[in-house]
């Protein structure tokens, strides 16, 4: 099975308009995240107390602050741009962490079988039984909220899905001839799993990453919204939305704009991930 590529001439890869839009939005978000320093009018923490609570363009605002300002005069456009950067950064880092941890555990479970496998699978069951946000909150409460811990926690959201998937895929890969053959040729476990089995199951794992990604973004934004995630002076989309909540009556844009961005991003990721899954791996489709 060839790895995912962007739409080529093959009819199989033709994307319906909704998916094109979704992909476009995702790329836009990624571009904004990368180019934040270049495209942002000001730094996200720059205050201007004489320009507080300005509305956006079209609702009485000026070009100086196209998306309005917040309670202490910070430019919403800049804050949005950097919010996107931080949220995407955390989501990407987190997804990678979760994918790596989950996949390794899944591979170990399939490679070792026996008690190790039973133990890991039980942990997977436990994890699947409890909403992750509760666990995340508990850990953050008990161990304090440092940036590193937060990213790790956010990343571990959904690890059990990678573990389950990887284990299943490795189990069937082990049955297949090439795994047995390469062991017979004298390869050790590392070469077998990392060099042979893993590349063959990678595409399914990548699809799982795109499916998990919206949930990861939502977790980060939810926690930050509740004030329990990213802390000032850093910013994130969730934090912006949370800060705008109390000003909803007077300055709706402070909450609605970040909310809109979050919504569009998770929607795009969901649509794209579903489409990708249907294309690449009919076995994974519900």
């Amino acid at each position, binding site marked *: 099975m060839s790895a995912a590529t962007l739409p080529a001439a093959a009819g199989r890869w033709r994307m319906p308009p909704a998916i094109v839009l979704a992909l476009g939005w995702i790329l836009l978000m990624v571009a904004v995240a990368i180019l934040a320093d270049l495209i942002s009018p000001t730094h996200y923490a720059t205050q201007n107390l004489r320009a507080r609570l300005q509305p956006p363009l079209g609702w009485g605002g000026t070009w100086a602050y196209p998306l309005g300002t917040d309670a202490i005069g910070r430019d919403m456009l800049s804050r949005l741009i950097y919010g996107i950067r931080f949220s995407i950064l955390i989501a990407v880092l987190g997804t990678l962490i979760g994918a790596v941890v989950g996949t390794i555990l899944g591979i170990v479970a399939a490679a070792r079988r026996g008690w190790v496998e039973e133990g890991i699978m039980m942990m997977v069951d436990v994890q699947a039984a409890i909403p992750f946000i*509760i666990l995340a909150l508990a850990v953050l409460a008990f161990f304090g909220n440092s940036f590193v811990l937060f990213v790790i926690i956010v990343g571990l959201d959904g690890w059990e899905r990678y573990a389950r998937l990887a284990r299943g895929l490795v189990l069937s890969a082990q049955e297949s001839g090439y795994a047995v053959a390469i062991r017979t040729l004298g390869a050790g476990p590392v070469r077998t799993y990392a060099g042979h089995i893993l590349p063959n199951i990678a595409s399914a794992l990548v699809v799982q990453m795109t499916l998990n990604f*919206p949930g990861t973004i939502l977790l980060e934004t939810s926690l930050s919204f509740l004030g*329990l995630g990213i802390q000032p002076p850093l910013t994130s989309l969730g934090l912006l939305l949370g800060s705008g909540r109390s000003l909803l009556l007077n300055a709706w844009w402070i909450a609605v704009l970040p909310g809109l961005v979050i919504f569009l991003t998770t929607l795009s990721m969901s649509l794209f991930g579903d489409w990708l899954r249907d294309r690449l791996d009919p076995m994974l489709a519900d």
Partner: protein
Amino acid sequence: MLTLLLVKTFRALLTVLLCVTVVFVVLRLSGDPAETLLPENTPPATVAEYRARWGLDAPLPEQYLRYLAAVAQGDLGRSFADNRDALGVVMERVPATLQLGGATFALAVLLGVPLGIVAALRRNTAVDRAVMGFAVFGFSTPHFFLGILMILLFAMQLRWLPSSGSETWQHMVMPVLTLGTAAAGTLARFTRTAMLEVMGQPFLRTAHGKGATAAYALRRHALPNAAIPVVTVVGFQIGGLIGGALVTETVFAWPGVGRLLVSAVSGRDLAVVQAIVLLVAATMVTANYLVDLAYGLLDPRIRDARR
């Protein structure tokens, strides 16, 4: 059949035990439980009493057993906020959340399932697409965003509904709509898929052949079979509702367990956090267990296969 029941029960209990163990580990890793779970100004005598009861100076295995005993008896520490028994504080808020959860659940089922059926019956028409579009938007919209939009629209612009609190039924409308839309969307989607699968099966055509009307076939054959995946999804949704309740209760200032958890985490009232985690774990495992049983009862293939 009995063995199946026993195996499932055993697994459920094991999962709960595992959750409790994980909490125990986290508790020990994060410091001395006597400090973590008791407010600062607790008199030393009380502290000593807790230490003895939880066996905090005893070897680890004994601590673990005592912890299990404490949990079983509901002794989970004392809340910092008002120096009351943590579990009691949590249980006070449970009815409010149950209220919200129950209404949301009802909305999701009453809205989602019929929509899914309609979409399946009118497959590939505008109706189908509209329903599926609604479903996708429903479960993609983050709860906080939907909640805020609703407040903006219904509370501030239109002034139909209050934006926070819980006194009257009007207070419930927006939170339930917020939580319920996502759940309804997912349910609609799954119901549609399940119905389509069932509708395509030969046994239904046989029923038609025997002269059954569409309505009869629907009622006797299609619906019961479609119920199976729907029940499974319902099981998943319970977890989603708990997670969603956190944010929704905060947005609407609904006095439930979710909001309590948020304030407990910010205030580092760890006894309450512990109590909520354990309570949620027990609830989820029970819910999954019941769904699993229902699943086994509904699908005769599963019932008979394990004999």
